[in-house]
């Protein structure tokens, strides 16, 4: 092997994937940066003129921006926390040798397998005040008061989060199941010989060794959830009650598709993009996600 070919090797390995990404992503991204600096809207769809950073100034000057940002962070953190804990716990349960575990696994991926549109709307129906199954179960089985799910901001947000947790845990479960297979059995045996208990083995072997596979899933899960408009939009029917159930990306969607304010929507997208970029850089510094564990 000569030196120069060894040096070009990684680029060859990387090339195809990179090419696909560049092909599909670079142009749309550049296009958005451009229109975010123009007045492109319904009345200037084909003849946008350069505007500079006016949209950005307007966005950063919006009084509600901080509140919606905090809500978006809350939405993301709560969802990811439950996705990962529920997913990992189920993966640990279903990694044991028990009869019929493929059946359990297959059933548990159903929330992920079924088209989100129908399941999210079904959940909306389940949260109906008078007829929804959630309130029926709460009142008839447990004797609680019926909850006005879409009558208050907090409950509507909770309903959307519950739905999204349900939609997202199977994905983390599958990833964790894969990660568990990378842990060599010998390590457990060695630990057992050293007298480590079940809990100790979990804490010192399983969880740390799950990390390399879970970190990317958590990282991407965070990004996707931060921008996951569908679920909250479908469950709250576009912002019930009274437009209070919105996350940052809802503004982009409304600006683009209700008002055709393409320039503003693109600028808002850039703001979201930059927020996420900062959050993820901080996270990657903390977890050293690009480095090896061994």
């Amino acid at each position: 092997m000569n030196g120069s070919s060894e040096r070009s090797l990684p680029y060859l390995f990387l090339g195809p994937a990179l090419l696909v990404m560049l092909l599909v992503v670079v142009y749309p991204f550049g296009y958005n940066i451009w229109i975010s600096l123009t007045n492109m809207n319904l009345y200037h769809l084909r003849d946008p003129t350069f505007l500079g950073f006016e949209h950005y100034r307007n966005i950063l000057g919006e009084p509600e921006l901080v509140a919606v940002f905090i809500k978006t962070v809350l939405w993301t953190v709560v969802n990811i926390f439950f996705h990962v804990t529920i997913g990992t716990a189920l993966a640990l349960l279903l990694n044991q040798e028990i009869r019929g575990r493929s059946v359990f696994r297959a059933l548990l991926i159903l929330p992920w397998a079924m088209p989100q549109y129908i399941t999210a709307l079904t959940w909306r129906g389940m949260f109906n005040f008078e007829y929804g199954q959630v309130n029926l179960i709460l009142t008839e089985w447990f004797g609680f008061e019926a909850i006005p799910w879409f009558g208050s901001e907090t409950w509507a947000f909770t309903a959307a989060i519950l739905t999204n947790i349900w939609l997202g845990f199977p994905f983390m479960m599958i990833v964790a199941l894969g990660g568990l297979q990378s842990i060599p059995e010998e390590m457990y045996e060695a630990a057992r010989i050293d007298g480590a208990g079940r809990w100790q083995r979990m804490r010192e072997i399983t969880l740390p060794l799950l990390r390399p596979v879970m970190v990317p899933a958590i990282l991407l899960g965070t990004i996707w959830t931060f921008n996951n408009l569908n679920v909250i939009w479908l469950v709250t029917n576009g912002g019930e009650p009274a437009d209070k159930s919105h996350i940052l990306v809802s503004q982009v969607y409304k600006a683009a598709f209700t008002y055709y304010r393409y320039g503003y929507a693109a600028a808002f997208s850039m703001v979201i993009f930059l927020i996420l970029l900062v959050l993820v850089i901080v996270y990657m510094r903390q977890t050293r996600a690009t480095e090896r564990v061994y």
Partner: protein
Amino acid sequence: MQNRYFRGFLSGLIVVVGCMGAVLQAGCAGEKAADAGPIEIVLWEMMDPQERELLLQNITAFEAEHPDVKITAAHFGVEDVRNQFLTAALGGGGPDIIYGPSDQVGPLSAAGTLRPVEELFGAAFFERFHELTRIELNGHLWSVPEQFGNHLVLVYNRALINTPPADTDEMIRMAKASMVDADGDGKIDRYGLVFESKEPFWLAPWIGAFGGWVMNDENEPTLDTPAMASALEFCRELKATHGVIPQDCDYELADTLFREGRAAMIVNGPWSWKGYRDAGIEIGISSIPRMTSTNAWPTPMVSYRGYSISASCDDDKLEVVRAVVEFLTGADVQRQYAEKIGALPSLLELQGSDLIARDPVLAGSMEQVLRGQRMPIVPEMRAVWDAMRPALQNVMNGESAPAAAAKEMQKMATKKIAEMRS
């Protein structure tokens, strides 16, 4: 050795991915090369499955008479057809003809993606259509109306209601009388009246009943009015004071209850009637009853659907496009739609015919249309809807008083319209 193969493999992958686009492009170009064939017209629509079936039959009939024309119809959802059309127009693609609701021409014409239709058909052509179906915007007409209506009516379950109520007081009385709590658990098993109580489209009839409307003739929002406050108060009372409509009543709940025979009356549009009949409900159609306090008729929003012509349609195709649209909005086709689907014709000659008179559903629907008010087609209406929705929900949830909500609506609508233009 193996390194070399692997390098070959990876380079191969890169080449394959890179060529994918080029190959496909060549493939598409090859298909387009055969331009000696018929004139191809592309039409996008958002029709319901049954309507689409009729459309396809009519297209086949047209093609049989014009062998040199080939029409391709592509289907989209209501929102998709508009958004896709704009996207395609920006990308330099899209259809020659687009079919849709009247309010879609607002944004599409503002964006400069449509051709004025009166230039192609001549102003006289449109005199045959009902005046509510030819609404000008910026001095032009933007679509040829094919059907008329899309308005709310009072639908009642004939098994529970004999004669529809004459005024709103009677409607409330009948609704109360139809409410049933069969097992006495304090939960209502059958409601008297249901309708989507969170969407402003269902508020519109009541605004008119108090003498107000959402926009004036200059297309400026007129939301902060006593009429708006009264309409909001009326809806709030239906739920809070009279308790005739359910707590958390959105479209799907109202629809479900009526289908299951667990609601005596529903306010809903023509799109829903077939589903009720399929569910075994014998329905009656009547106008939404007179408001007792004002003695005025509620005025549901009346709109129409029709064909618009893309600005990017080639000039040499225009004559064929005109023939296609004229055929698809002609008397024969409209008669078919009325008889088979229950769509109201937009042509005056058919509106007076016994086609309407002999069918009680069409007649009831027609009666209501003539009591309605036109839905504004300007793009700013989107901001008005969006401003009305949260305020309406706040009133229904008891979070704000009707007068304050009306004020808030006007403020938000003005703000959002200004933003649209910025």
